[in-house]
């Protein structure tokens, strides 16, 4: 063994442009879809309306799915109970909004937004708390076993749905949007619903906030590392169990936020609404790349746009459009659009 070791100062070569662009291809998918929509939809105003509608829908699905993808990526947990948090969030939020009827009925944007903020806060606290209890009582005993996770979280979902029937009754509840968010604005000849624009803004804020936390903070660093190799994160001195629980709570709270947004989008809520949205959520999480927030964001927008364009062009096609999208994307990128590397 010699002491005079070579330094191995490496040289770097510049990759060809196509190679450098390759990781960014999924990002181009959304603008490409929008351009395709522009080319195939005969009316420009219809295209604009459908595009905003698709983006709004995508943003709401992203808010709901972002927590789930992190939970799956970090904890390797398939949580079918995620739908329960959506429903609970919607019911709690709606209850608060109905109680604040004077604020939501006032023609004041500030009062309307304060009422929504109150509803969102209540929904996120309740679903965050539920997430904590769910992780401790239902998920923790089945870490490492996907089959058991599916069974027990599905059971948890059924119990949660029945709890909604017990608390709020079996009937659906109609919830009107706050006064200033009703109706639409006209832009370039297209009617753009005010609420959908708000949904786009909220989704964008959640995405940027999540990205900021994940990319710019130590906590985000721990979460990203934990998605890849939780064991090594522990060996570096970080209590991964606490991070797991924190992410589960945050993911559940985001589902609660998404539930409130979805309730105001549909203007009617049912106990099984979360369960119904979960199909879209699963598609988004899978095509995005399990554990990837960026992939989830692109996947959600893609799903929202495809569903809206397809429903307009051929309503019957809307039923299978997202499944077809999933098949196409998985044939292109079997690990999802933004795959997360997992330690073996």
């Amino acid at each position: 063994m010699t002491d005079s070791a070579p330094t191995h100062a490496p040289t770097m070569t510049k990759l060809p442009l196509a190679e450098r662009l390759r990781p960014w291809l999924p990002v181009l998918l959304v603008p490409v879809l929008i351009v395709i929509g522009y080319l195939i939809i005969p009316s420009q105003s219809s295209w604009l309306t459908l595009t905003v509608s698709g983006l709004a829908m995508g943003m709401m699905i992203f808010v709901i799915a972002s927590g789930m993808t992190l939970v799956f990526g970090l904890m390797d947990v398939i949580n079918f109970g995620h739908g329960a948090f959506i429903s609970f969030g919607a019911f709690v939020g709606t209850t608060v909004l109905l109680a604040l009827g004077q604020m939501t009925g006032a023609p004041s944007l500030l009062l309307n937004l304060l009422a929504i903020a109150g509803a969102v806060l209540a929904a996120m606290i309740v679903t965050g708390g539920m997430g904590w209890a769910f992780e401790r009582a239902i998920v923790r005993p089945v870490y490492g076993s996907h089959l058991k996770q599916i069974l027990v979280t599905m059971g948890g979902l059924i119990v949660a749905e029945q709890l909604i029937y017990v608390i709020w009754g079996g009937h659906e509840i109609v919830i009107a949007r706050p006064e200033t968010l009703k109706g639409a604005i006209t832009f370039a000849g297209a009617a753009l619903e005010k609420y959908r624009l708000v949904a786009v803004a909220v989704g964008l804020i959640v995405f940027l906030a999540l990205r900021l936390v994940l990319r710019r903070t130590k906590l985000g660093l721990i979460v990203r590392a934990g998605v890849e190799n939780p064991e090594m994160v522990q060996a570096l001195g970080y209590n991964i169990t606490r991070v797991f629980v924190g992410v589960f709570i945050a993911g559940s709270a985001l589902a609660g936020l998404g539930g409130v947004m979805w309730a105001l989008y549909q203007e009617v809520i049912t106990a099984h609404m979360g369960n119904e949205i979960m199909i879209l959520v699963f598609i988004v999480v899978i095509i995005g790349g399990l554990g990837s927030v960026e992939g989830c964001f692109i996947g959600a927008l893609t799903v929202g746009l495809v569903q809206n364009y397809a429903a307009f062009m051929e309503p019957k096609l809307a039923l299978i459009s997202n499944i077809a999208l999933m098949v196409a994307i998985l044939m292109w990128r079997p690990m999802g659009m933004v795959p997360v590397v997992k330690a073996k």
Partner: protein
Amino acid sequence: MSDAILRLKGVKTDIAQYHILHGVDLDVPRGAVTMLLGRNGAGKTTTLRTIMGLWKPHQGEILLDGAPINGLNPAQIARRGIGFVPEDMGIFSDLTVEENIRLAALSGQPIPERLDWIFEAFPALRTFWKSAAGTLSGGQKQMLSVARAVVEDRELYLIDEPSKGLAPAIVATLAKALKDLKNRGASILMVEQNFSLAKALGDHVAVMDDGRIIWTGRMTELASDTGLQERLMGLKMETA
């Protein structure tokens, strides 16, 4: 060995239905490099992972500076002052080299002086500082794995086969860095199959077989006795 920084007493570890460690007794002296040698499957990696808390011993005691650590989780053990370089390097491929290093600095940011030393020992890490760790070569990943462990002062370093699968020139770079770490008075317990590297770095040796320590002594003693090497590890001494 009176001044042991780490002491294992009768440690037994099972993995699933397999009994891997059958009662490991080992003292790791402070401020020296102890090489843990033995055939494949002897239990060396399991010993390191058990010390680190990644596998729980079902019997026995592990003492760090006299305090038991075998009931603690890996994060608590790491925070007691153990740096770990696993056999598979444990690099976070999606994180940049900088982020890998920053994550290992428990106190926040890496100490500049320590960072300078890392860059001096492993210039490649400075070059690829902002690159995803997954794009590094095998040797550079191993350098990063070692750098991550040494970015802060630790009571003890557990290093598992740092030379595994690496070209001789890269092994030489790593050996130089580890020797420098040793000269700074670090306590190291290292698993190594490359006997030349083990000889160059080791002060003490513990040889394992079938989940037990079968021999301990000074490296000079083992290095000078080819018969002992062959008896303990099946080595034919063209490497001596």
